[in-house]
């Protein structure tokens, strides 16, 4: 029961008030930790979030963000090499097609073909040239995403997490 002060009728409770002050301190600490985590990129857009996956045997490499936010745009930067005919194939796994809205691809592909395992894009370039392709995506589903990107015979798999 809250102790009533002697003269003034007041629902003052010092024991509770001390607990509340402790909670205030904890909240302050938690907010500082959250801010630090945000700066470091635990919620996306920072050093902890930037990641890269590559195939040691090829020139196929993807720069991506580990942590994304629902509805907030993110960019995949793909490094690949065109084949001897100057053609470059890039396939996006079905999970990516389902869980991301594709906002744009730079440079634009020559063709896009939908298949049971996702979308395959074809780009034309100089034979054997190293090409950088940027894909802007917006997550439209929350939670963990197992993304797959393929080029020629190689495939890269990586995991991203989409915050609500």
């Amino acid at each position, binding site marked *: 029961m809250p102790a009533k002060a002697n003269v003034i009728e007041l629902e003052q409770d010092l024991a509770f*008030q001390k607990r509340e002050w402790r909670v205030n301190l904890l909240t302050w600490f938690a907010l500082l930790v959250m801010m630090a985590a945000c700066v470091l990129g635990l919620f996306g857009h920072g050093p902890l979030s930037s990641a890269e996956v590559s195939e040691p045997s090829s020139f196929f490499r993807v720069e991506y963000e580990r942590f994304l936010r629902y509805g907030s745009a993110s960019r995949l930067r793909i490094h690949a090499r065109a084949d001897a005919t100057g053609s470059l194939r890039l396939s996006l796994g079905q999970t990516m097609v389902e869980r991301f809205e594709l906002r744009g691809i730079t440079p634009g592909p020559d063709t896009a073909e939908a298949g049971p395992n996702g979308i395959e894009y074809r780009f034309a370039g100089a034979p054997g040239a190293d090409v950088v392709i940027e894909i802007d995506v917006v997550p439209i589903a929350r939670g963990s995403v197992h993304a797959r990107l393929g080029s020629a015979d190689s495939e890269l798999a990586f995991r991203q997490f989409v915050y*609500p």
Partner: protein
Amino acid sequence: MDTVFRALAIYVILLFVLRGSGKRSLSQITTFDFVLLLILGEATQQALIGDDFSVTTGILLIGSLVGIDMTLAFLKDQSALLHRWLEGTPLIIVDHGAPLTDRMQRSHVDESDILAAARERHGLERMDQIKYAVLERSGGISIIPS
């Protein structure tokens, strides 16, 4: 479905952050507190509606927020403990003209705040004219003159 969960998430987060930050944080005492409140409102709005500007979403959001608030009010009536945690308790910070400095420090109140409240509401000039100053649940300071 999404709208209700958004409303619930934002309501709960705001409740935790604002209650957790103490009585004085957003009691609109200073100009900056007021500005902070406006910015919070703006940030909250974006998270609540996203890019859906339909009237239906607006109606659902208003209904959800008021519904959550009414449910919480009901639960507070049922549980004194919950009521205390959600609303806080008042605290005496000046007792017969003597400032209780430890309580004031921990509540982020200084003597000038108390004297300002005493001047504004009762035209008092000095601390010894104050019988009690109470830091209310709302974060405001009420003065009982001696």
